């Protein structure tokens, strides 16, 4: 008798749970803790903040879903999305053809290219890859910069780092002679003054440009449509521009 009552209670409560979900879904959003200003861990509040976080929160408000931001390593974002650990990727992730085969992206949010950092003692005016011929360079795991760098065949090694601050730290000590990463992220890090011996090479012209976008699973076409609709609206009413300006991006 008790077991039957328990079973009935369980079924009823799960039904109410399901109906509650349909109106007020909470979607898990994957971001990184070290991609300032796009996504970063604010150690004072212990929450992930940044351009992409503000954006996905606004999109959620407009499209009607709540978001729960989770920080994880950049290279684990896509596998986490495809294995249903998260539902949305909101990070500084380029929309690229190889990625589009595995996940879907929203419309572009912000466009930029890679930046080159060298130790401050190195004052050479590097302009392109060929200027660094024969050096070992660094790039972040899972980014769209690795393959183009490896394909040039110009570098003795393309060292792979887990995070962008790790690349900055190695250039700071001089252990790494050159590093490539998202230019806005490098600029922001250097501006904060944590890596005093690093120089962002202004003469360098980006060649691996891309636009960042919100990522969803291929099976979530409906969610993608809602995100794109909200993104359109927020672009037109100036919200996106405000968010970018808040974080110092054009």
């Amino acid at each position, binding site marked *: 008798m008790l077991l039957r009552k328990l079973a009935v209670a369980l079924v009823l409560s799960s039904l109410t749970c399901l109906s509650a979900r349909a109106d007020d879904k909470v979607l898990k959003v994957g971001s990184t803790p070290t991609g300032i200003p796009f996504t970063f861990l604010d150690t004072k509040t212990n929450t992930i903040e940044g351009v992409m976080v503000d954006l996905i929160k606004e999109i959620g408000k407009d499209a009607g879903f709540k978001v729960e931001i989770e920080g994880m390593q950049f*290279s684990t974002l*896509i*596998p986490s999305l*495809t294995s249903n650990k998260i539902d949305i990727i909101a990070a500084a992730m380029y929309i690229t053809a*190889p*990625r589009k*085969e*595995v996940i879907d992206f929203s419309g572009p949010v912000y466009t930029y290219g890679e930046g080159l950092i060298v130790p401050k003692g190195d004052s050479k005016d590097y302009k392109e890859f060929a200027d660094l011929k024969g050096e070992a360079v*660094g790039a972040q*795991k*899972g980014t769209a910069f*690795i*393959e183009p760098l490896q394909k040039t065949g110009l570098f003795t*090694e393309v*060292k*792979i*780092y*887990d995070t962008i601050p*790790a690349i900055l*730290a190695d250039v700071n*000590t*001089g*252990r790494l002679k050159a590093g490539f990463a998202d230019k806005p992220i490098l600029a922001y890090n250097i501006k904060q003054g944590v890596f005093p011996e690093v120089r962002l090479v202004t003469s360098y012209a980006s060649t691996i440009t891309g636009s960042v976008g919100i990522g969803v699973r291929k099976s979530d076409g409906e969610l993608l449509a809602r995100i794109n609709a909200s993104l359109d609206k927020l672009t037109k009413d100036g919200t996106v521009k405000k968010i970018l300006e808040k974080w110092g991006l054009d």
Partner: protein
Amino acid sequence: MEKFLADARAFPPNLLQGVWLTIIVTLGSLVLSTMLGIVWALMRVCRVRFLQRLSAGIVNGIRGIPILVQLFYIYFVMPELGVTLTALQASIIGLGIAYSAYQAENFRAGIEAIDKGQIEASESLGMGWALMMRRVVLPQAVKIILPPYGNIMIMMLKDSSQASTITVAELTLKGQLIASSTFKYTSVLTMVAVLYLVMSVPLILFVGWLERRMGEARR
């Protein structure tokens, strides 16, 4: 399935470069940890109280900190203290020091397992401590030490993968690299696991053989 076979032909050459570094890291840290382990163990069993305590303190300190934390410390923190090592140096030194603690405990157990009668007999013959260790205790202790030593070797082979976190392009990092750029996680990670097995299973079989041989020899 055909896709997996196509991958099975495309990825291994790249992964094998990682295997080479895995072997280098494993062998390098094996040599270093053995040498350091012998030092700590001999300090522990010698007759000087101060050295005994010092060795115990060092070994316990090393055992108390996760290997990963030690590697990060050596690679990312030491440069700020003026010591900048390459990733490969840092991984061999880091893993060597970390494992020297386990080696030391293993050697100490082997030495202390030698019958006290052997030591008394050596002393009654007038042998000094160093001569006794060299001619009587250590040769017998080797039989006891070898099987666990083999086990430590197997553990080091797998723990070489921790070097991936400080940018050493060994097998695990190579695998992650290929997987994260091609998104073929299943194929790539399966190949990585198989490659590790190919390296460790012969080692495991060898250690099993050692255990049987040593067991017989002691009788």
